[in-house]
């Protein structure tokens, strides 16, 4: 699978000049602050916005190529579009909204009404009018409707942005289910990094109309451009590991690099892939193997870089065996511990400050990075 997009368009006071390539099936997240052109780029992909120049190619289907004067109209592109404000048809019931998409699908159904109803738990909503739905339910119906059009690709434009935090947590697991159970590539637009690192396999950073960096999520979590968007406190390595099993206290043991993390991961099964976020501000660095501590996780490694973190702190990148994690410590600590490239260190982190999510089975491994 190959998905390639580029678009240039001049607006009054704003220029879109973006491109990205998704090398493998999965979820590509377009991430950046509000107003950076994410939605415009998605509209170009859907065909709702005509760029001055650009292309949209999905495998061997050329949906747009301004040089070759190809521009397929949106109704023939088969892009399942989930809008921020759901855009359910108010004169139709939930069931009729879903069937609207199904009736107009041009290729054989790979997603049928039963499957969508099951995956998104829409059974009880079928006869409701759309204005009787909660925000979370509306978005579930909108996702179901987009899927039933049998799309080549699912475009999700801030699908959770209009929901409050609890509704958001209600819908997110459904999106994870889709990612893991349906082999359908997705483009996920968001300005919320928590959603992005939980869902995406591939991350494209955008700033004022331009795509500034892209790559697999794990690799991008170390990218300095990301820090500029999410802020120093949210910076941290996102690593993927395999669940080894539960330890006697009930924590999940996860193999990461050469080391092992103990994570509160609920009912993760042995062999499952888990994505763990280690916030740089939560990591402690030691130059001797620590003893007599409550900390559950001690990862041995060596410093690969020390970079200034704008202010009185440094970001220390530590290789723990093929995987890099990051710690933010004060410059005074860097000096006292004499940290520099190659220093052998132990990184400490409390299990309670780790967050982890299952990433299912259909996720591209981290080795498939692309710049």
């Amino acid at each position, binding site marked *: 699978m190959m998905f390639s997009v580029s678009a240039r368009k001049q607006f009054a006071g704003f220029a879109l000049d973006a491109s990205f390539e998704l090398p493998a099936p999965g979820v590509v997240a377009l991430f950046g602050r509000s107003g950076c052109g994410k939605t415009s780029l998605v509209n170009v992909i859907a065909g709702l916005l005509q760029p001055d120049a650009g292309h949209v190619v999905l495998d061997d289907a050329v949906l747009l190529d301004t040089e070759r004067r190809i521009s397929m109209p949106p*109704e023939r592109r088969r892009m399942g579009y989930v*809008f921020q404000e759901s855009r359910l048809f108010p004169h139709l019931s939930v069931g009729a909204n879903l069937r609207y998409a199904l009736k107009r699908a041009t290729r054989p159904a790979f997603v049928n009404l039963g499957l969508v109803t099951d995956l998104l738990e829409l059974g009880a909503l079928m006869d409701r009018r759309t204005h009787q739905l909660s925000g979370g339910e509306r978005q579930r119906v909108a996702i179901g409707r987009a899927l039933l059009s049998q799309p080549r690709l699912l475009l999700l434009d801030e699908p959770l942005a209009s929901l409050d935090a609890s509704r958001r947590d209600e819908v997110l697991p459904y999106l994870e289910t889709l990612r893991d159970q349906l082999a359908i590539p997705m483009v996920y637009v968001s300005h919320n990094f928590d959603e992005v690192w939980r869902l995406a396999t591939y991350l494209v950073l955008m700033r004022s109309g331009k795509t500034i960096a892209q790559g697999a999520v794990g690799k991008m979590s170390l990218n300095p451009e990301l820090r500029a968007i999410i802020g120093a406190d949210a910076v941290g390595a996102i690593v993927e590991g395999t669940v080894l099993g539960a330890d006697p206290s009930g924590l999940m043991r996860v193999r990461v690099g050469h080391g092992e993390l103990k994570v509160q991961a609920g009912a993760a099964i042995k062999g499952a892939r888990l994505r763990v976020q280690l916030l740089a501000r939560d990591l402690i660095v030691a130059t001797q193997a620590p003893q007599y501590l409550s900390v559950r996780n001690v990862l041995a490694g060596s410093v690969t870089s020390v970079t200034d973190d704008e202010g009185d702190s440094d970001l220390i990148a530590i290789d723990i065996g093929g995987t890099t994690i990051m710690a933010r410590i004060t410059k005074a600590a860097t000096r006292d511990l004499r940290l520099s490239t190659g220093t052998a260190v132990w990184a400490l982190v409390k299990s309670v400050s780790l967050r982890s999510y299952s990433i299912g089975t259909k996720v591209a491994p981290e080795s498939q990075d692309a710049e």
Partner: protein
Amino acid sequence: MWLSASESEALHLSLSVATRSVLLSLPVAILTAWILTRRQFLGRTVFDALVHLPLVLPPVMVGYLLLLLFGTRGPIGAWLERAFGLELIFTRNGAALATAVMSFPLMVRSMRISLENVDRGLEDAARTLGAGAIDRFATITLPLMLPGVLAGAITAFSAALGEFGAVITFVSNIPGETRTLPLALYSALQTPGGDSSAARLACLSLILGLAGLLLSEWFARRVRRLLGR
């Protein structure tokens, strides 16, 4: 029934003329409303003014204009008669045409307001789901502007029942063919001893007009509730 035979004839004729008038103008008005709301073109303002012209012109003048165009020697009238054997002058179809022209702006206005409130985003959504232009119009745009279409039709129907000047100028005042309620009322007033007949016809017109307006309002509310607005 408290109406005389000729009065009840005028009532039936009025209803028949108004129905024909609405059926004639409805599709044209929907198209006109759509063009005025959704299309940008040179001369749009002039077109808009033309559509609204019957509101400000003397109805007698509109009738006269119709006479020139659709009369037996008028360019369109002569052609209609040759091609379809359709006679407009002195007929109820002619009366329907005159009332259709007069109530056209009212109808377009109501539809336009409704169409302007239709969320274009919903049409885009239908588009991404594979709906082509005609499909989108029929399944999304038209149902969502329906409150305005029906309110417009009911208002136009009520106005058509009461149209006087254009009708009497274009198709004259022929009992049983073109003598609608207002024309019958006018004739009654001209006839010695027609006072009680005139009063009954005036009452009837009042009831019909009021019922039309109330029905239109009730209907608009009902549809709004159905759409959850």
